[in-house]
């Protein structure tokens, strides 16, 4: 989604929203499978995990909708519907946070519900009966349930929270998580990395633990972080991970093995693929858990819910032992250990420098995982912490630091992925390297390359790959409103800062113009600030329409400029290019004109992209004509 910054006026000042702070700061572990909430509890003020009236601490991250698409239950009640009422039960939505259909391409077959892109193509929505719901909204429901549990347990209203995210979450995923918090009526003071939170809980009352590794294998994500904990300073040295590696994948490995064992003519094959998948996964999880205590288990699947039925043809039984399961899991474990290797390298350490290895996340209960981690680090992994609770406890402890009760403790975290900008030819110039301590900033200077150039584009990327297209696109900014001036006159300083949440802020400043105007934009992904506010105020559908309206207006302005420039170019180059090329270009121009009138953001974006691609050669021919600046002013704008 291109964000436009007008250098002429500061219309895009970030909206600072201040909500009155109420109650203690909650520490929320918003997990793929399970969620928990912690807070300091009176009278001692000691941080504890909060339970419901039945003493139940865990809220499964599951939301169930009724046939009309309304939320019918959240947590344990919703989880009970899993397997039977499969299409209306939403689980593991954390995997979809801040993700578009394109991002999820490779794993789409694993997701047992229907997905579609939102209007902007930046965030998937889940199709449920007649309605579609965004992962942010689903997560907000889980957060509301956690908040309610906290209010009930603490006996007072509270609206401030620290929410944990996998360390390896990128900007879009973090922003989506923050948005979910706001949607649930929470003032999200910070999103904090899960392994770091665990380290806080571990080192809080531990004098000098030294250099430790946190191995955090949750339901859907994996992180490893190396920290140095010394004299009240928790310093993250490096972090690595995989946002698509977790207990779910261990289930899937078993489920995939079982699926091929079902004969083609078996009654189970008559189920719809999605029904079968849901059933396989539920049983796979049961088998996985059983294998943590026993060495042998049996994978049992039947067509109907009625277990007493003596119809063997409608069910299967597959024996499975630990050896077999470990073979199925080998590839997953290798991926996790590769990440560990990289984290140690990035910290410029050897595995023998690590003094303690902490196991975090429910999936570290698997004996095979523990054994492999111990083997890798050459020491018995530490499983003394409650792997489910430690993350939310750590988040609440960060709340203690922020509220001034941290007794001089300080946490210094790092950015998990490098931040860069697209340069000429689709390469990436890195501005901020991964594992830089937060907050961190980089400044770049830009100038105009032609007198008539009045705007330029910045394409910000996150990732480690060399080419722009292989990295995650964070935002496209258009800086516009430059006054005509000789080439090289303007001095636009762009400041990129990653805040303590790991979220990017960008500002542009025209150093040449007499008065300094500073523009601050907090790019949000999946959901914009405006959209969120509308969602809070009124019906969701309206908000989205407004949002796309604004986007559409902006895009129309851009398109009209391109139409003018392209018309001019056709005049200028018609003698110099082949008839076919010109005809093709003209055809694209007609498409674009039609799209301007069609009022569809998507159609317009496509038409613009097409004319841009098609006009590239022509524009190169006429480097100095208007089209080159109007179409592709993002090339070669950087001042060395």
């Amino acid at each position: 989604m291109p964000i436009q910054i007008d250098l002429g006026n500061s219309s895009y000042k970030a909206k600072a929203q201040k909500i009155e702070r109420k109650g203690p700061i909650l520490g929320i572990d918003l997990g793929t499978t399970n969620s928990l909430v912690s807070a300091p509890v009176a009278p001692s003020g000691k941080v504890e995990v909060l339970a419901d009236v039945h003493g139940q601490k865990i809220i499964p991250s599951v939301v169930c909708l009724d046939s009309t698409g309304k939320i019918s239950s959240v947590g344990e009640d919703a989880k009970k519907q899993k397997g039977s009422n499969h299409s209306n039960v939403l689980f593991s939505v954390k995997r979809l946070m801040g993700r578009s259909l394109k991002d999820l391409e490779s794993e789409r077959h694993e997701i047992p519900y229907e997905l579609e892109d939102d209007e902007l193509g930046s965030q998937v929505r889940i199709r449920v009966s007649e309605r579609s719901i965004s992962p942010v909204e689903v997560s907000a429901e889980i957060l509301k349930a956690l908040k309610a549990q906290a209010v009930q347990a603490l006996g007072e209203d509270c609206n401030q929270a620290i929410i944990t995210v996998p360390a390896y979450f990128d900007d879009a995923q973090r922003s989506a998580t923050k948005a979910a918090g706001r949607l649930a009526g929470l003032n999200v003071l910070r999103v904090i990395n899960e392994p770091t939170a665990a380290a806080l809980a571990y080192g809080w009352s531990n004098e000098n633990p030294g250099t430790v590794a946190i191995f955090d294998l949750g339901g859907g994500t994996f992180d490893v972080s190396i920290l140095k904990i010394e004299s009240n300073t928790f310093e993250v040295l490096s972090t690595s991970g995989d946002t698509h590696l977790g207990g779910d994948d261990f289930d899937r490995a078993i489920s995939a093995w079982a699926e091929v064992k079902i004969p083609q003519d078996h009654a189970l094959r008559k189920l719809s693929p999605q029904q079968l998948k849901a059933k396989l996964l539920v049983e796979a999880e049961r088998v996985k858990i059983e294998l943590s205590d026993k060495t042998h288990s049996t994978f049992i699947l039947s067509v109907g819910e009625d277990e007493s039925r003596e119809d063997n043809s409608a069910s299967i039984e597959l024996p499975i032992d630990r050896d077999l399961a470990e073979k199925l899991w080998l590839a997953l474990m290798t991926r996790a250990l590769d990440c560990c290797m990289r984290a140690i390298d990035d910290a410029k350490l050897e595995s023998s420098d690590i003094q303690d290895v902490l196991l975090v996340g429910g999936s570290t209960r698997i004996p095979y995982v523990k054994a492999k981690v111990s083997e890798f680090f050459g020491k018995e992994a530490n499983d003394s912490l409650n792997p489910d609770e430690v993350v939310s406890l750590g988040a609440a402890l960060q709340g203690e630091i922020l509220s001034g009760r941290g007794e001089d403790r300080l946490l210094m975290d790092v950015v998990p992925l490098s931040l860069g900008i697209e340069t000429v030819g689709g390469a990436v110039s890195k501005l901020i390297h991964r594992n830089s301590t937060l907050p961190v900033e980089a400044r770049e200077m830009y100038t105009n390359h032609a007198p008539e150039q009045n705007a330029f584009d910045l394409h910000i990327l996150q990732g480690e790959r060399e080419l722009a297209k292989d990295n995650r696109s964070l935002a496209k900014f258009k800086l516009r409103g430059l006054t005509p001036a000789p080439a090289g006159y303007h001095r636009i300083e762009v400041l990129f800062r990653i805040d303590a949440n790991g979220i990017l802020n960008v500002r542009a400043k025209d150093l040449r113009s007499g008065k300094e105007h500073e523009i601050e934009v907090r790019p949000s992904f999946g959901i914009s600030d405006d959209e969120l506010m509308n969602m809070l105020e009124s019906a969701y559908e309206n908000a989205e329409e407004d949002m796309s309206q604004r986007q559409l207006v902006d895009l129309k302005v851009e398109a009209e400029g391109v139409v003018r420039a392209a018309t001019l170019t056709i005049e200028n180059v018609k003698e110099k290019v082949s008839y076919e090329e010109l005809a093709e270009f003209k055809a694209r121009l007609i498409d674009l004109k039609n799209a301007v009138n069609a009022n569809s953001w998507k159609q317009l974006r496509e038409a613009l992209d097409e004319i841009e691609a098609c006009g590239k050669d022509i524009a190169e021919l006429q480097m100095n004509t208007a089209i080159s600046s109007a179409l592709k002013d993002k090339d070669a704008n950087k001042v060395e």
Partner: protein
Amino acid sequence: MKIETPKHFSVLGCAPFWSLSLDDEKHLKAHFLSLTRKYHPDLLDLDCSDKTREEYESKSSELNSAYLKIKDPFERCDYILSEVERQNPENFSLKTKVELPLELSMNYFELQEALEDGSNSPAVRAELASFSEKLQAIANEESMKLAKALSRLQTKLDIQTSASESGSWPLKVDDLTHIAGIRGLQKYIDRILIDIRKFQ
């Protein structure tokens, strides 16, 4: 030649040069941590103004960026050199001629030819190993030279304390050219080592 104290050094308020010893790195780190404790936004009152928060966040980012840039002694050295070049392009250039000892150059040339022909015989591989050892030895020698040159420079600057207080560093072009030459050779060797590692 005088250069203005480069930004990252003025942010950290630190002496310009350090030897390559690790003790100094610890010293720098302790200094960085004490400044971080002073300016980290997490230690602010939650009800402080947006302006104060912004100031702390900005200061803290500057500190982190500065420390990141100069914590490694080699990167620190390169940063100083690039600042001198930026401030005094007419007096100082980083473009120095880099040469390997003649014997090694020949050696490298022959190896390249052999590798480009796709040769992977044990003889070539042994040659490759001995060649990288020799390179490594030179790199180590250069590191010693660099450490000496930097500590000499540091002593000179320390004597002129009044000068460093005025926000600028008095430096001699010859000293810097000598250091730039060492760094140039080290980087050249690093590149070759990375190159031939592909074949090993």
